[in-house]
């Protein structure tokens, strides 16, 4: 009986083609947008590029000119310097032909139109230059004979910091958007879960009414529908991970089989949650759909889909919420797999997801059983 029902439930689910297709198109489209946008962010924030700057050298600072000209002669110059008077330089800045203006004098000063990465690079350069000048002056004031020695020490390469890598995984924090995208696809399993009650609840649909008066036991009927929804959602999740990993080449770390397992488990959490919400009989189907969509969006928002550090902000203020937010648990399990080499924290997340699935499904069964209708 179960297998017979399962077969037809799968067929029924597959016939809601538009929903299945869109559940697959959703990660495909958003994944492509994310990849396109985030690859460029990586390039923008890490790739070296020459910064255009105007220099107003009213003081005739030969030392600075020597440094600037020396830099300009290098293969990858930090600055592209244009010498100008104050008015010309301001005009260049206004037209955005330069990112800032350096004024020479007792110390270098900087003028910019607004603050951004290039402007911060200029500020860093000016600070560095001024610091070195101060060092030489102070050393010379202490001991005039030491000025040359100080200059030599300043030009020596110092490596005061040794680095200790924290992870062997992919440290690119933009990957977290893909974790959250997968969590959102899993949460949209809620729609599949809602569909189970829609076709089984007698007061919701004609199909539900027919099923309710059939001789097939309700437990078997719902179990098969739930299993079919799990299977469909798992297929969606597996295709999403495959697309992100192999077509878009998103680096989720080395534990790919566990990524698949996690995404499948995440999908079952979404389906079970939808089943539970759908089982609440006093709400209309439309109200349930609106509430579940809004609810899943909120959960994804709190897990960091729209604001990257939202999860950590919540961790600092209400950490228990991250433990019970299914979207946060799903995205955190991907994060643990990628970043941590031991599986203790990951195992905790997997157990939480399994517990959510069982808890939501059991509660859903409790709400759907023993329903009697005076008339339909």
């Amino acid at each position: 009986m179960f297998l017979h029902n399962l077969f037809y439930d799968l067929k029924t689910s597959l016939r809601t083609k538009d929903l299945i297709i869109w559940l697959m198109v959703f990660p495909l489209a958003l994944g492509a947008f994310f990849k396109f946008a985030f690859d460029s962010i990586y390039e923008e924030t890490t790739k070296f590029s020459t910064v255009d700057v105007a220099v107003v050298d009213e003081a005739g600072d030969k030392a600075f000119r020597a440094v600037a000209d020396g830099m300009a002669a290098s293969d990858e110059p930090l600055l592209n310097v244009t010498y100008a008077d104050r008015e010309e330089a301001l005009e260049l800045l206004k037209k955005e032909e330069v990112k800032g203006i350096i004024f020479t004098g007792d110390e270098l000063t900087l003028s910019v139109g607004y603050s951004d990465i290039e402007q911060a690079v200029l500020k860093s350069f000016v600070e560095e230059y001024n610091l070195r000048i101060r060092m030489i002056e102070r050393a010379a004031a202490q001991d005039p004979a030491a000025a040359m020695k100080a200059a030599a020490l300043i030009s020596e390469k110092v490596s005061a910091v040794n680095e200790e890598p924290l992870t062997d995984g992919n440290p690119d924090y933009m990957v977290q958007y893909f974790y959250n995208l997968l969590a959102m696809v899993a949460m949209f399993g809620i729609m599949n879960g809602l569909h189970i009650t829609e076709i089984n609840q007698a007061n919701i649909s004609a199909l539900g009414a027919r099923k309710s008066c059939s001789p097939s036991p309700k437990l078997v009927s719902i179990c098969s529908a739930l299993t079919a929804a799990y299977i469909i959602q798992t297929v969606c999740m597996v295709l999403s991970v495959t697309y992100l990993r192999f077509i878009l080449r998103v680096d989720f770390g080395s534990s790919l089989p566990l990524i698949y397992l996690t995404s499948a488990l995440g999908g079952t959490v979404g389906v079970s949650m939808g089943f539970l919400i759908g089982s609440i009989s006093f709400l209309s189907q439309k109200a349930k759909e609106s509430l579940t969509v809004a609810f899943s969006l909120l959960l994804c928002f709190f897990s960091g889909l729209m604001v990257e550090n939202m999860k950590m902000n919540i961790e600092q203020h209400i950490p228990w919420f991250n433990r019970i937010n299914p979207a946060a648990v799903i995205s955190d399990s991907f994060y643990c797999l990628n970043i941590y080499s031991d599986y203790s924290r990951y195992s905790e997340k997997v157990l939480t997801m399994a517990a959510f699935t069982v808890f939501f499904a059991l509660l859903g069964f409790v709400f759907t059983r023993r329903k009697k209708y005076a008339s339909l």
Partner: protein
Amino acid sequence: MQVFKAFFKVLKRNSFTAIVFIGVFLLLALMISDGKAEVTIFALDAKKVSVFDEDDSPESRKFVEMLGEKFEIVDIRNDRDIITDMLYYEQIDYAFVINRGWSEKLAAGETDGLFTSYKMHDSYAKVIVEQCLDDYVTAVNVYTAAGMSLDKAMDCAGEDILVETDVTIEKFGDDNKDFTPMFAAYYRYLPYIFISAILSALCPVLMIMNRKDIRFRTNCSSVDANSYTMQIFAGGAVFVLAVWLIFIGAGVYMYGGIFRGKAWTALLNSGLFALITTALAVLVASVIDSQKILTLIVQILGLGMSFLCGIFVPQSMLGDSVNAVGRFLPAYWYVRLNEMLCGDRLYSTGKAMACLLIEAAYAVTLVLVTVLIRRVRYSGAHKMTAAKA
């Protein structure tokens, strides 16, 4: 005005859905913009650093004290997992250990391996903090070599490191005192909120109006197809006006106070974008008929546009190729103008007008495309084609 009245009858029956979505997205708007408007001259100036002092000597404590004046020191437990999480999610920019024997090595003029930093990913903040550590060590070395005692050399190095460079922000237009950073942050996220809230609330109503039974009845009535579409637009626009006022009112209450100067331009900008969203809602509702699919499409449009147009990530951080694609989307011009108004890019009246005109052109284009699609899809021609097929 029969269609216009019918629109509001259907809206009234579906008010629960509209209220849920508007409520949720109002909450999101306030939460997203809150804390995203830190006022710093340079975004990269605000560096959060965690220090673990294993040397624990008077010299190392003095050094940490000096660092506290340069950076924001964040106290966290010296636990590898916590450090990993904090660095990965950029709650701190840098974490490092002052190694045992630091003060002795510094006094002896040794420069290598004085600190151990925890590495997650590369960033400008990391480079700047590391440069500061190297500079400090170099300065102490230079001053001790010049004959100063270690204590005095550390004092002088600290003084030098803490000197702030004189940076001026040139104002070529009006200043942005009328459009505060908090207000600007709230307005920056409005396109995502409008697309998500308005489409989620308005499209279900429009989808009901497009249902076969209602549409066929309307088609055989004396109402002209164009008039029908325009009345739908008018109904949608009135609804969106109410939604827009709710969000603008919330913004004023939370961040803005009364509108002055440039804030009026921001208001006009958001009004134009709300109109674009109205046209988009009518267009989307004309081509789909399922609530579940609507949810997915709204997310693709809302999140997609947000990431490609600089709503969630500033346009300056997006590459040229992304900005080139973003130019074809209305949210790009909205965000561009918003960035000009709040001083993140240079403001000029001509550029601001260009952004507003482009947005208006998008609204008109979307209305025209929708009229065309509805004529083809819902007119007799479409039914005849369907019948032939």
